[in-house]
């Protein structure tokens, strides 16, 4: 009986002229989106790889100088670009592409791609994630809004119930039918999307992520299938079902994300620049300043170190006092910047918790979060990269200061280092988080999405049972 | 009052009306019987100017409909098959609106009187049409026709969906109008009602008026009319 109903549903949908037109439209848009973004990704990756190589070259070929001066010369690191970013660019356009690493300062990333665009660009670009997340649910709605309502309105429901069909079976049958049609259309999409991965020679790990993305979107579509059937059964009238379903889509995909994000911003505002910098400045003044010998903390450190090594003057220390003091200053500064950065990140995290809370209304938000995380284009992956860059900065500057401290005589500022030295400084290597850690992060939002799926299914059965034949 | 001369309407190859000739005098109730698609609605549409005939003429009160589209509408009233009206307006407001369109500015008391005559009491007249039964809406439609003081009345399936009481009320009103000299053209499926009120009954098939039964002269039973109908179509 289940399959009979499913078959009927499939047949009536496939015969509908609307299916053909909308399927073609969806297919066209999806292909366009893959073609459009693939280029962008490959070109961007190439640019960043080249820039990274060039930056390293510039570092190695810098004018011979004192190692601490080299710390002031600094180097650049560039945001890693992941293969799946063509599928879902996430927040990529809004995260800085470049970060300047130098001594004594923990900088903010600069040059977000969106800054080089016009105002129209904020209306979005056509990406596979956009087509699947925003537009495909409409396709589901278009095909499914009449499912229960038409049966009721044209009297078939009475017939079906009289034939002994249980409401829950009716629901499962309709659901199965819709699933079949959805899969019919969306599996070729995913195949086309996979072609993108092949084109960029992505590694095995990314195929796993892509597989998870597929599962994710299927769960998301399931939510919409259930939602469409709920509204169809609840209203019992075609017109109302259509209005209700479209309204639900507007609420879920268009309104809730924007409303929630704006609300979260206002509930947990980031500090003003002045306040942020003031707080940092204040804290910096509580520790060693590597460049200021008259500083109170430097003097204290001097006394302590002299005492520790049992000597009377810094000349007698077994290392270069200048380098030592620079490093201590550096450590203090790093600590202060880190403290305030963490505070800022916590504010962001609180904002994001509100976004996740809104997932009760909108599975679109959940899907967005998961999709971005899997593609590597979410904000947490980016902050991870920034943290790794900071660790590298600490390491590099540490190397330079250590060289100054142990290989140079105190007071000798004329000593220089050259290419052979700079060439053996650590390179910046960054790898995205391993899959098991990723799965750990995904667990919570994925769990919520599954709950949405299951609960919506349960509610749908409830409304199917409640449907009264006209 | 209502007359058609060789009225023909073709849609491409299909002939909806084939040389229809018909004369309805004031005080006559002419019922058009026929299958779905026989041409009853097309005939009415030609008189109303909703459709242009391919050839032939339609006349209302001696005026050619095609040449005097607006003038002729002054003399006629129309009750369509689907009388839903504006659901958010009251019966009174609906009547006021359509009357004003016809060029009549009635006071509220006069409008209520018209509705009363059509069979709709005052308490109902001030409620929204969305709460009306089909019979009540029908009565508003009739009131609209009465308000125009028209001499020709066109009815399309007026009794379909009415319960017996409402249907009866309707027939009484029709007979009253007949006494007042209104010419009525009524398209219907209801053979019994046709027999009850009609002066003449015309049976249409494939766009032609194939049989005209004079109800006053030939006193036939409803069953006999039904037989003739079934033979004809």
């Amino acid at each position, binding site marked *: 009986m289940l399959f009979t109903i499913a078959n009927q549903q499939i047949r009536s949908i496939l015969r509908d002229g609307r299916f053909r037109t909308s399927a073609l439209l969806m297919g066209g848009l999806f292909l366009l989106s893959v073609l*459009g973004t693939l*280029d962008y990704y490959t070109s961007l990756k190439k640019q960043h790889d080249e*820039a990274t190589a060039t930056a390293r070259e510039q570092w190695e070929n810098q004018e011979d100088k004192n190692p601490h001066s080299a710390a002031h010369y600094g180097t650049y690191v560039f945001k890693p670009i992941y293969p799946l970013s063509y599928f879902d660019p996430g927040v990529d356009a809004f995260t800085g592409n470049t970060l300047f690493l130098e001594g004594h300062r923990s900088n903010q990333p600069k040059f977000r791609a969106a800054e*080089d665009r016009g105002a129209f660009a904020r209306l979005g670009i*056509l990406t596979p994630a956009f087509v699947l997340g925003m537009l495909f649910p409409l396709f589901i709605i278009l095909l499914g809004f009449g499912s229960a309502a038409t049966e009721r309105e044209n009297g078939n429901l009475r017939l079906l119930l009289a034939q002994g069909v249980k409401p829950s079976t009716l629901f499962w049958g309709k659901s199965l039918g819709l699933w079949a049609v959805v899969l019919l259309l969306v599996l070729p999409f995913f195949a086309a999307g996979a072609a993108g991965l092949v084109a960029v020679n992505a590694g095995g790990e990314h195929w796993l992520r892509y597989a998870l993305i597929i599962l994710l979107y299927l769960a998301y579509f399931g939510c919409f299938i259930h939602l469409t059937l709920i509204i169809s059964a609840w209203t019992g009238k075609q017109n109302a079902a259509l209005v209700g379903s479209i309204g639900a889509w507007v609420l879920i995909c268009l309104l809730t994300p*924007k409303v929630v994000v704006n609300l979260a911003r206002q509930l947990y505002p980031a500090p003003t620049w002045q306040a942020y910098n003031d707080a940092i400045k204040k804290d910096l003044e509580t520790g060693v300043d590597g460049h200021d010998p008259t500083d109170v903390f430097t003097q204290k450190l001097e006394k302590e170190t002299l005492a520790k090594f049992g000597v009377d003057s810094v000349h007698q220390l077994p290392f270069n006092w200048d380098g030592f003091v620079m490093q201590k200053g550096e450590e203090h500064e790093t600590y202060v910047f880190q403290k305030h950065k963490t505070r800022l990140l916590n504010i962001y995290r609180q904002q994001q918790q509100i976004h996740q809370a809104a997932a009760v209304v909108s599975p679109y938000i959940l899907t967005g979060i998961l999709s971005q995380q899997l593609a590597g284009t979410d904000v947490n992956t980016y902050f991870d990269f920034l943290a790794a860059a900071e660790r590298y900065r600490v390491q590099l500057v540490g190397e330079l200061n250590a060289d100054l401290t142990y290989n140079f005589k105190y007071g000798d500022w004329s000593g220089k280092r050259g290419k052979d030295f700079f060439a053996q400084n650590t390179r910046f290597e960054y790898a995205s988080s391993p899959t098991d850690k990723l799965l750990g992060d995904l667990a919570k939002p994925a769990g919520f999405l599954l709950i949405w799926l299951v609960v919506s299914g349960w509610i749908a059965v409830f409304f199917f049972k409640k449907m009264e034949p006209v | 009052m209502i007359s058609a001369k060789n009225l023909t309407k073709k849609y491409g190859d299909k002939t909806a009306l084939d040389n229809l000739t018909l004369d309805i005098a004031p005080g006559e109730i002419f019922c058009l019987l026929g299958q779905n698609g026989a041409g009853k609605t097309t005939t009415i549409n030609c008189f109303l100017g909703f459709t242009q005939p391919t050839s032939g003429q339609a006349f209302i009160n001696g005026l050619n409909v095609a040449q005097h589209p607006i003038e002729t509408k002054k003399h006629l009233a129309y009750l*369509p098959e*689907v009388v839903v009206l504006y659901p958010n307006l009251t019966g009174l407001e609906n009547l006021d609106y359509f009357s004003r369109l016809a060029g009549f500015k009635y006071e509220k008391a006069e409008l209520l009187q018209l509705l009363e005559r059509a069979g709709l009491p005052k308490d109902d007249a001030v409620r929204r049409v969305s709460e009306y039964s089909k019979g009540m809406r029908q009565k508003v439609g009739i009131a609209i026709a009465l308000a125009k003081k028209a001499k020709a009345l066109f009815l399309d399936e007026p009794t379909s969906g009415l319960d017996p009481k409402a249907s009866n009320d309707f027939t009484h009103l029709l007979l009253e109008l007949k006494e007042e000299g209104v010419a009525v053209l009524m398209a219907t499926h209801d053979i019994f009602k046709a027999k009850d009120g009609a002066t003449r009954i015309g049976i249409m098939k494939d766009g032609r008026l194939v049989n005209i039964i004079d109800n006053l002269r030939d006193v036939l039973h409803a069953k006999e009319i039904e037989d003739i109908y079934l033979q004809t179509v």
Partner: protein
Amino acid sequence: MFLLQLKYETLRLLRSSALWLLLVFLVASVGFGLHNGVQRITAKRLSIGEMLVRQREDWEKQKMQADSVARNLKKVAWWQDPTNVVVVGGVWRGGWVTALEPAPQTVLATGVGDLQPDVWRLTLMGKIPQGDGELENPVNLAFGAFDLAFALAFLLPLFVIALSFNLISAEREQGTLALQLAQPVAAQRLFLMKMLARFSLLAGLTMLVTLPAVLWAGIPLTSAIAWQTVGVAVLHVLFWFLLVLGVNLQGSSSEQNALISIGAWLVFTLVIPTLVNTLAEKIHPVPSRAGYLNAMRDLDTQLEKTREERLAAFYQQHPQYPQKPATEKGWRDWYREEFGLIEEEKQVRDSLEKQYEDKATSQSAFADNLTLLSPTLSVYRQLTDLAGTSREGAKASLAALDEAQKNWASWFLKKFDAEQNLTAADYDEIIKFPNKVPVASAPGSSAGAFWLIIQCLLAGAWAWWNGRQKSLLST
């Protein structure tokens, strides 16, 4: 006739529960959008206020210090000397904090406003950003602002569609269409008056919702901008009304009309803008600034290499300046050289900057040229232009800042050339420098409205064409 139609259209509309729900929806959207805009400006003003207050305090302190140093009461190193023209005017530190003052109309649309720094430091060499943009969570930027532009561009059409999709189809299905046409009225005149009445209602409601909201958000009633905003809203209503009217004139059922209208909304608001952006990116790709930074570094190295020659040329052109060997150069000599070479170096650096700028501008211009394709783009364009938050508006604001920087630099350079030091009196003059520059409207800022009018004409022509093709009564 018109008044009759107006009376009854009003009654019908006001008595439908759908209208009230939709009105609440519209008021909520417009209100929330403007609230967000106001909140954004308030936050900006707060931030700017803090920075300017801090500056005021710091400069008062500096003035005191300068006074002490001038009277030889205090000794400081030259790079911390508050009477030193170069140190105060600013090269790598110092300088004058100037803010882009948000005008009341900035509440209308966020545009690129949340990506650009609001506060800049003007120095003798140029201007350096110093602002809030960096501290915004990227997620917030990615989702975009729910501003008035969003409400008017995306949600207002839904309001119009919901109230007009069954304009004619409902009358046909209710039988009132036939009833009306059976009355002695010219069909065209009846129809025209009815449409006019319905549109007047929709436009009136829109104005009733938008105008008070705009006034509440702080834009004065006398300002042209308030009326231009309302005008954009009404034009947008006109476009969608005509479009849905055209759909109705095709003679399908109410349900079909609803589907087609929603489909049109999707195409115009979601699909076309994203396609335009994708196309713009493909045809005018903007490279990542990664390459820019490395190229800039290379440039710096190059400039270092040619410094000797350029210095030689400089001293040749200015024989009045003494050329000293490195060990004898004082800060004045160093900076005289810097200022002497800066013009040329700036040109070289700017030409690199221009390469990237030009690519970005041509992409943006390409997208702008496609405004005709969707009223969403027109509305967005007009509102961001009015608010000064379009790309052109942002550039105009930066140009104004550059002007201010030139004034700042020239005042100090005059003193530098005259080898003067700063006194407390000078400080009083300095503090009078404007520390705010108003956000500019983009030049030619009616382009969006112009395209919107064209789109209304096209929609009207389409509706008229449909009207000619089919009789109103046909199903």
